[in-house]
């Protein structure tokens, strides 16, 4: 199949346009956190606590972020991983660009409807267990661009969010506090949640 970017790109664009329209019409309510199945008979606490603690400690102290940065908050995340507010201390300076390796996606910036299918696809392609931090006012409610025709009012229309960090852009210390909140949430996670 001979691919010429110019001639065939119009129908590639049209195909992507339909994807955007479907997603826009289908995502009107916030996506809730997928509650893992918890069958009662597997609740043997003793076995759980030791394995849980070790697993969650491992997951908590090596969260690898996916480079899905969109706009201004990117530079606040970069200044977080730079020498002054060094996030490498928590083992988080590994920026994996493939979703298969990453287990945390920080949505740094405004999400537009044209970008929404891509973010949703990358989130679905991430390997379990995965978490999402909605960073900045644009991530929570669309922020200063909420009433624009092409901005998604908040990431929770597209992805289930674990931690919200307000601020436009939030200071690196606020981002660090958000990450601490996420690490506490990871600590209390029972592996049976799947």
């Amino acid at each position, binding site marked *: 199949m001979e691919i010429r970017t110019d001639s065939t790109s119009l129908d590639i664009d049209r195909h992507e346009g339909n994807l955007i329209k479907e997603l826009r019409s289908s995502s009107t309510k916030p996506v809730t956190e997928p509650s893992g199945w918890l069958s009662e008979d597997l609740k043997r606490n003793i076995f759980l606590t030791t394995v849980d603690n070790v697993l969650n400690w491992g997951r908590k102290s*090596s969260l690898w972020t996916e480079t899905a940065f969109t706009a201004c908050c990117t530079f606040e995340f970069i200044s977080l991983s730079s020498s002054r507010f060094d996030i490498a201390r928590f083992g988080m300076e590994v920026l994996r660009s493939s979703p298969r390796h990453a*287990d945390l996606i920080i949505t740094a910036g405004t999400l537009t409807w044209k970008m929404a299918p891509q973010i949703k696809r990358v989130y679905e392609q991430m390997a379990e267990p995965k978490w999402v931090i909605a960073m900045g006012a644009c991530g929570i409610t669309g922020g200063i661009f909420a009433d624009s025709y092409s901005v998604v009012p908040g990431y929770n229309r597209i992805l289930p969010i674990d931690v919200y960090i307000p601020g436009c852009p939030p200071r690196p210390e606020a981002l660090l506090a958000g990450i601490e909140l996420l690490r506490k949430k990871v600590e209390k996670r029972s592996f049976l949640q799947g």
Partner: protein
Amino acid sequence: MPELITVGAAISPNLPWSDWQFGFWIHLLIFGIGIISLLLGSVIIFIWLERRLVGRFQRRLGPNRAGPLGLLQSVADVIKILTKEDIVPSRADKLIFWIAPIVAFTPVVLMLAVVPVADGALLADLNIGILFVIAISSITALGVFMAGWASYNKYSILSAMRTVAQLVSYEMPLILSMVGVVIIAGSLSLNDIVKTQTVPFIVLQPAGFFIFFIASLAEINRTPFDLLEADSELVAGYNIEYSGMKFATFYLTEYCEAIVLSTLAATIFLGGWQGPWLPPIVWLLLKIGIVFCFIVWIRSTLPRLRIDQVMGFAWKFLLPLAILNIFVTSIFVALWPETPAWLMGLTNLAILVAYILFWSKLFKPGGKAVAV
């Protein structure tokens, strides 16, 4: 050099279990498990060391929250990756997708089988030690290519193609750089090479070490030759579709290759386990650490080369230098055997410097000039 006669058992006489009836199996057990556990232990330490060192090069602290001084950081990484979901893409070639990490990991560990930890203390004292190392080291290229091709992803295909070009074309300089050492040592077995190194071969053979180090930097895909996993161009290279433990195996292979490179450089050029006061194994680990820190130093300062520059560098610069090195060393050893060590080292260094200056005139930086 007394002929090492292996009486019945396959191992050199001075090991305590050499004449015991099950000596062969005990030897295999101790050294087999020893090599794997030593390698994994040092990988855990070296991952932590690299992240701390790169942090220090970038004027920031490395990981220091997980455990004292962050030592448990790599353990945390292992636990997390162990319990990560395993994804096998639907259109991937399933069988090759599964086998690729194993084919990539095994040869790296095998190369340590012939490396002596102390006098005569190695798994198999092959008298063709170096040839075995070279033959085994080219299999990783196969494993990486299988991974890239099987995962049905455009970026990993490009990375697989680059494997074929880069790893294969750096075999030649790697092989020829060790011929100089073999000429002086007069034997292929790594144990004998270490024993004949009254003066470490890096002094006698600076050009040989220069070629060996650069060629193996390319073999283990480290900056400035990290084209396979060039994260700014090909998103994550050949291991883009691997997640969980299979990705960890590739991550492990990368660090095992770095450690094996440092071990080979230490045994062949820096005098292996020889050292005045400390026990032999501590000397070997010390030398491995020094070479590894040098690799990390290069990784955090130099930018990456382009694919055609990498190829041109291997075939046009390293190969003629390697042949020249063999030419000069063989003349010295054949015609004038009892030359003092410093003279041989000096001439070798002089040839290296002259060669680099000669080439720096010819190689003008500036790719093909395409004006728009």
